């Protein structure tokens, strides 16, 4: 069994004159939970679309679960996909949607689907056209996981949902992870709420993966340093300026080694060190 579930090399996509992906490299091992961090319009959905064999890349290669996106749709049968705006046929009930999907996915587990309905408090008889955003999200989640795919692609799975539904989704995610063997790639605006679940965070910026950090690294080894600088100095490695007016400056420091080096740097003598929250780390990475 191949442990490299997903690998893209140099993925490029442009829509007319606008280049969205400019040589994107991404890889995922089996069992990894990867968060894609990116601003609105940075190309996350395009990336997912290419991985799902819905959009043809202009250049580069992608291999997912041992298959290449070739337009046949086979890949979509092996991936569990929760789109940003889930949509289903309005005239169907939740149960009909699930039964319809069951005919397309070989490994569909109807018992699991119905069990999830019960756990997530989704009435199978409710009509799609009458469903709230939260219920649609639940249905999308069930549809994506009921066929036990090895790879889950989640595009903003909790955005716009109330606390309780969000909780359901995250619990469902954790449940899938507990079963074992699932690889998850998720893009989320509020990446902070998933900080404990992620293994890795990849920053999608300017059409490429600009940075990739372990989640534990960002949680444990991100610091905020406030220092008084007499003059402008070049920033050592792992140090990012955060702002501040005049002589008093704030910096983010990534990595314990870089922090020790900073403390010993005479330019930064007397700096106040405090930990950098995960949310703030993400903001720094995005803005960098």
């Amino acid at each position: 069994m191949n442990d490299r579930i997903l690998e893209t090399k140099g993925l490029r996509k442009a829509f007319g004159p606008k280049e969205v992906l400019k040589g994107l490299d991404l890889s995922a091992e089996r069992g990894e939970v990867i968060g894609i961090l990116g601003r609105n319009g940075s190309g996350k959905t395009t990336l997912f679309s290419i991985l799902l064999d819905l959009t043809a890349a202009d250049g580069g290669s992608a291999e997912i679960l041992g298959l290449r996106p070739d337009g046949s749709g086979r890949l979509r049968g092996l991936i569990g996909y929760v789109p940003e705006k889930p949509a289903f046929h309005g005239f169907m009930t939740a149960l009909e949607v699930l039964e319809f999907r069951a005919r397309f996915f070989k490994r569909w587990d109807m018992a699991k689907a119905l069990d999830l309905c019960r756990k997530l408090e989704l009435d199978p008889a409710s009509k799609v056209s009458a469903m709230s955003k939260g219920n649609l999200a639940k249905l999308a989640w069930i549809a994506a996981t009921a066929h036990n795919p090895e790879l889950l692609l989640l595009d903003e799975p909790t955005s716009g949902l109330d606390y309780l539904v969000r909780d359901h989704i995250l619990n469902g995610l954790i449940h899938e992870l507990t079963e074992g063997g699932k690889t998850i790639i998720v893009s989320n605006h509020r990446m902070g709420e998933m900080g404990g679940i992620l293994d890795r965070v990849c920053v999608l910026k300017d059409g490429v993966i600009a940075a990739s950090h372990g989640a534990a690294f960002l949680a444990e080894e991100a610091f905020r340093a406030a220092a008084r600088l007499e003059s402008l100095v070049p920033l050592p490695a792992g140090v990012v300026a955060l702002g501040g007016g005049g002589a008093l400056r704030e910096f983010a420091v990534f990595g314990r080694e870089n922090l020790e080096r900073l403390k010993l740097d005479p330019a930064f003598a007397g700096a106040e060190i405090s930990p950098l929250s995960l949310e703030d780390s993400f903001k720094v990475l995005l803005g960098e």
Partner: protein
Amino acid sequence: MITLNQNSQTPIYDQIKLGLKGLVKKGLLKPGDAAPSIRKMASDLKVNPNTVARAYRELTAEGFFESLRGQENIISPRAGSLAEHAARRVSESLETALKGAMESGFSWTEVEKMIAALKRKLL
């Protein structure tokens, strides 16, 4: 039951271990009780089950957990004594350090200031 500090420099799995040990020390978990399942712990804390699994593995290795009657992750009888043991060790180290400080001529206030500074440094 356990709260995690996402911003702490302590890895999450360490925080879980400490949290469980704290519960036993407070007597909320007694030897023979089953620890919460990995799934439940992960769901409650909103963390990766692997992280919980790692914490539990290390606790088992340390002797904090044992397997009994086919069930895993049961608080072992030694858990309580392990916790007490750890607490006693910390207490002894502190006593040694404070004694040294006072013998060196530091007043309590100065010692407290130093503790505060260390707290900022370490946390």
